[in-house]
């Protein structure tokens, strides 16, 4: 199990545990944990509503693909620490990371 922290829109933090052997994406884990995210495109890197900011652990995560970077480029509030939760697979690299939910809600 991988343990990481989610900061919601109100700044509240919660520790989450997720299995790393089920090929789950961070977006799927957030949805399953009932966080308010739209994830309109269902994880195809087409909507950017699953945008998260990596507050801790950014350097350890795998590099974003061109498709992910293309989508992040369409976000006015993206930073160098922005990722699409649907493109991040739960893995060892996430252990101890902190993610802040940043996607639009309508």
């Amino acid at each position, binding site marked *: 199990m991988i343990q990481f922290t989610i900061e919601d829109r109100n700044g509240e933090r919660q520790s989450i545990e997720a299995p790393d052997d089920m090929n789950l994406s961070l977006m799927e884990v957030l949805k399953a944990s009932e966080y308010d995210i739209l994830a*309109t495109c269902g994880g195809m890197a*087409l909507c*950017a*509503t699953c945008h998260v900011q990596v507050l801790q652990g950014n350097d350890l995560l795998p590099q974003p693909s061109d498709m992910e*970077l*293309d989508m992040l*480029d369409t976000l*006015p509030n993206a930073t160098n620490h922005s990722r699409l939760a649907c493109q991040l697979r739960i893995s060892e690299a996430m252990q101890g990371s902190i993610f802040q939910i940043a996607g*639009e809600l309508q």
Partner: protein
Amino acid sequence: MEKIVTDICIIGAGPVGLFAVFEAGLLKMRCHLVDALPQIGGQLSEIYPQKPIYDIPGYPEVKAQDLVDRLMEQIAPFHPTFTLGERVDSVEKQTDGSFIVTTNEKTEITCQVIVIAGGLGCFEPRKPEIEHLEEFEGKGVVYMVKNPELFRDRRIVLAGGGDSALDWTLFLSNVAKEVTLVHRGETFRGAPDSAEKVFELAHQGKINLLLKSNVVAINGNGHLNTVSISGKDNAITTLTADHLIPLFGLTPKLGPIADWGLTIDKSAISVNTEDYSTNVERIYAIGDINTYPGKLKLILCGFHEAALMAQSAFKYVYPNQKLSFKYTTVNGVNAF
């Protein structure tokens, strides 16, 4: 100001709105469709035209845009009419029960029934978080280049890193007096050819290219006058500018539909699953925009909802006639 009279006004020309024309047409009801986007097809054409869809009955696989094209073919016999590139802003009930639907361009559609097939809502420009941005909309801040001539000999700041930011930078560099492109990244993906041209123009000093930068403030007196940009090391540069064009793509927003007195639950319209009617008589909601226990946001489900809606709407369009259900295999598709 255009005035249109029809039986059913369908708000949203996505797959579900389009199929509703077919179901209404079988019952001899005429439809007019309005969509805020300049093209038909809703999410299929706007977000994923080239993606295959696998769950449309009869099509083991179909590309999203091909499905839209086939729907257009299927409804052609019923001669639907369209108002594209206009957003429905208001809906007003008349004393005889009919409605007047008005768009942001003041097009008026008089109809007996309204069908909201608005999907996730209107696709609207993604806006950067800049203070006073809305005050300057139409007064220097625009999100779309409709008529490039408006920018002739003006000082323009474009913001964004996608294809449209690159394309308009290239185009406006020949029209405007001064063009600055602000991009938060260091490189551009998208069409490599356009990116290369933008770098070349910057190299020649024909445009200003501010990379690793963000627009952080705008100012002016009645009209935009300056744009402040935070760059490397957070240093702020303030440029004189007549126009700021943020180009960050489109995102769906429920928009004006939220103000029409309909029961809304988490950005979707609550409906009665018997006929997909809303709490307002003669207004129906089908497809992604509605909600009910067990709702699935699938094209297939929207098609089913369209069929039931049409059977129910018939009583308002033909109050003196009795509806008897017939299969298309028996009667064929009888156009008007």
